[in-house]
């Protein structure tokens, strides 16, 4: 059948020729009917001529088809290919045709089209490269800039922020892309400032102040930030809005207030003893002059007592002023081994003893000054004791880290170390002494013999340790699959989001670690972890992770699941506080979990006490996965992650599980569309059916 499907043009040609031939055949048959002896010779001649005409007609048809129709059809198809997919295509036209220069002209046109397309693509690629370079530059600037930067659209929704902003506002769980700035910063002062920047009818557009500064508190009240705000004017609503830079002034402000108060109190505390002292002294003088021995003794005792009070007061005052000086330094978590490696690689290393370093501990320190102190001590060992090699070891003990600098030789005398400590650090202009740097780290240094080996001595420098930064990852059995069907009866209202495409919704994927499986029998949350999904992207920078103090013991079985011990949560905020903070982090996003009913039950039982409501729409990655892959019985998080090509990290930590679930969930969204599940309503309905199905499955 396919063989006789001719292009329309050729079909019409042959239909026309066949019709003409048929007419001639009919005419011949009709003429044969009128055949008589008188007309016979001329008729036979006519029929013969007509037969020859039919043959000629067919021959002409073949010729037109070959020379005109076929080349035209081939040219037309070729032109389609040229204009569409392949500009380099050669027209498949036989050399003998009646189309003149048409095929060449079309090929030339196609070549010109291809050239201009190529040029356009090159220009577009160049633009893309430039835009990409600018974007990279902007991203680098935003990353490196020491101020926090937040960009919002005209509605006040956050469209961009840098890591410094995240650090400054780490107390604000609501900070995230797509969230309102009002959930992060105190709305009043910010709106007032934005209004000042708004062009009014009196001040024509863009002629108002370019930017303005304000100091405002974060929503939680835990941070005080200085912001500089500028409006972004643009016809494109996607880029219009405002940009703000942020500096954390809470520490400065609080410190300044604390210092002022401490200084004032310290000075006032000196006034009374000083007054009593001078007055008693005057009384003593009078009593002595008058020969009143008893009175003189009383006042001499008062003078003694007040002198002591003065001395104590002076001690407090001097401690306060010392802490004021050192409070200007900020202590960071520093890897001590890396810091010593830095000393080894520094240009000054040639003046130091050979260093052998086995230090893998974290300390809380001002890294630059501490490295200067260690370098200075090593320098003195080489210069004054002729030490040629030093072995450095780091050891954690309680809250301290002991840095031992160990060499072959004698211990250093205390007064010699004192002299070293009193010297100024050359690199900071000699204005800060080693002793001051060590005091700032609440420590000192001493020399002692190395008791473990003979003829070796060491300098021991205790430093404040930093919280452990190592991750533990051990394989543990999975949490049993758990449903709380009763919970689903209280279905949340989806509202305007019901028909929103799943890809466009904001989600918060979360996980709770608990003391057990029965919240109604006193089991409590010990940790909540969560991560946001914004426009289909897992926002690794927007996470929530808090340990909670459950106010009860954590059974060993639970600890074997999540590794969290009573000691870990001893200083953690209480569960209610953690739930409130999680509620703020979640905002109005759709909540997603793995076996989410389990986690929701813990939250819902606490919501009244915490004065919050968890009436968010919820989606369960486990149920949706079962819905999509019911052919397989492997419904553990690892099994699903493996099937969907998701790497599993930090299993059985609340945040680790949340991140894995989030990656699973974003892939599930893509797969759900194949099952005609596009909207939140589709997904929740499908999920409810799955719940019903599992319920029936359980009944059997």
């Amino acid at each position, binding site marked *: 059948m396919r063989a006789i499907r001719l292009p329309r043009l050729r079909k019409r040609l042959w239909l026309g020729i066949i019709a003409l031939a048929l007419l001639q055949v009919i005419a011949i048959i009709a003429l044969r009917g009128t055949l008589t002896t008188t007309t016979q010779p001329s008729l036979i001649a006519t029929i013969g001529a007509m037969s020859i005409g039919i043959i000629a007609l067919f021959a002409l048809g073949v010729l037109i088809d070959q020379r005109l129709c076929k080349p035209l059809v081939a040219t037309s198809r070729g032109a389609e290919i040229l204009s569409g997919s392949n500009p380099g295509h050669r027209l498949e036209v036989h050399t003998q045709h009646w189309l003149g220069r048409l095929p060449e002209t079309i090929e030339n046109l196609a070549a010109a089209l291809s050239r201009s397309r190529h040029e356009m693509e090159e220009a577009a690629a160049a633009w893309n490269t430039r835009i990409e370079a600018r974007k990279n530059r902007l991203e680098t600037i935003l990353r490196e800039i020491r101020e926090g930067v937040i960009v919002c659209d005209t509605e006040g929704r956050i469209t961009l922020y840098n890591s410094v902003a995240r650090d400054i506002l780490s107390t604000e769980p609501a900070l995230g892309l797509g969230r309102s700035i009002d959930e992060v910063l105190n709305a009043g002062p910010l709106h007032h400032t934005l209004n000042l920047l708004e062009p009014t009818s009196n001040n024509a557009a863009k002629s108002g102040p370019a930017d303005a500064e304000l100091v405002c508190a974060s929503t939680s009240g835990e941070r005080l930030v200085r912001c500089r705000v500028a409006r972004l004017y643009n016809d494109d609503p996607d880029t219009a809005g405002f940009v703000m830079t942020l500096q954390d002034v809470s520490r400065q402000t609080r410190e300044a207030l604390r210092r002022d108060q401490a200084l004032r109190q310290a000075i006032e505390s000196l006034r009374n003893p*000083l*007054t009593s002292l001078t007055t*008693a002294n005057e009384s003593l003088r009078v009593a002595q002059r008058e020969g009143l021995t008893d009175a003189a003794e009383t006042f001499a005792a*008062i003078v003694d007592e007040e002198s002591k009070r003065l001395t104590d007061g002076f001690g407090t005052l001097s401690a306060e002023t010392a802490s004021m000086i050192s409070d200007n330094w900020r202590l960071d978590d520093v890897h001590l081994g890396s810091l010593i490696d830095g000393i080894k690689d520094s240009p000054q290393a040639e003046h130091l003893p050979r260093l052998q370093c086995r230090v893998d501990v974290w300390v809380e320190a001002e890294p630059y000054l501490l490295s200067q102190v260690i370098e200075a001590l090593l320098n003195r060992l080489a210069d004054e004791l002729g030490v040629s090699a030093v072995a450095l070891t780091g050891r954690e003990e309680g809250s301290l880290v002991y840095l031992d600098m160990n060499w072959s030789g004698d211990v250093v005398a205390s007064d010699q170390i004192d002299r070293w400590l009193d010297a100024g650090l050359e690199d900071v202009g000699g204005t800060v002494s080693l002793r001051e740097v060590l005091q700032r780290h609440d420590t000192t240094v001493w020399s002692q013999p190395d008791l473990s080996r003979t003829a070796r001595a060491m300098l021991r420098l205790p430093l404040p340790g930093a919280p452990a930064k190592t991750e533990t990852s051990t394989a543990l059995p999975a949490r049993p699959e758990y449903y709380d069907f009763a919970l689903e009866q209280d279905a949340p209202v989806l509202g305007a989001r019901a028909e929103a495409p799943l890809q466009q919704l904001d989600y918060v994927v979360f996980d709770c670690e608990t003391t057990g499986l029965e919240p109604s029998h006193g089991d409590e949350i010990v940790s909540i972890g969560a991560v946001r999904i914004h426009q289909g992207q897992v926002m690794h920078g927007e996470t929530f992770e808090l340990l909670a103090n459950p106010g009860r013991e954590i059974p060993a079985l639970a600890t074997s699941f999540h590794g969290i011990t009573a000691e870990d949560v001893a200083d953690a905020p209480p569960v209610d506080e953690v739930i409130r903070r999680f509620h703020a982090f979640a905002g109005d996003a759709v909540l997603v979990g793995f076996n989410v009913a389990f986690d929701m039950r813990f939250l819902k039982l606490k919501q009244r006490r915490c004065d919050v409501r968890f009436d968010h729409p919820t989606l369960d990655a486990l149920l949706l996965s079962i819905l999509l892959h019911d052919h397989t019985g492997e419904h553990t998080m690892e099994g699903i992650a493996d099937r969907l090509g998701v790497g599993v990290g930090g299993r059985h930590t609340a945040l680790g599980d949340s991140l894995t679930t989030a990656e699973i969930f974003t892939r599930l969204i893509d797969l759900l569309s194949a099952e005609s599940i596009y909207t939140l309503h589709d997904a929740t309905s499908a999920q409810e059916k799955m719940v019903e199905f599992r319920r029936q499955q359980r009944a059997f």
Partner: protein
Amino acid sequence: MSNGPMIKNILIVDNEPNLTVALDFLLAHAGFQVATAASYTEAMQAVTKIRPDMVLMDVVLPDRSGYDLCQTLLAMPGLEHLPILMLTTRGLDVEREKALSLGAVDFIMKPFIPSTILARVQELMTEAA
């Protein structure tokens, strides 16, 4: 006035016992009759007993503010013109203004030299006489 026309009663209100003892001694030595109180409450009890001719008091008292005591005393019948000398450890200039506005005759910052207090007390007592 029951103690005779020449001897003036002075009440010291301060919860610094060493200071009140020493001031008591110095003022007594200078010829004044001195009573001491360590708090607002003790001061109010003392006032009913001795009818002071002058009060030296600290701004900060353990139970109530010295300013309250100052106002209460000046509101009592017969004490409208009582000279009150306020002593303070607070270093703000506005404190002085506040004390004078509330009726104190003077405001002296601690620490002070005892002889200046004595001179000021004698001066005020002479004025009153």
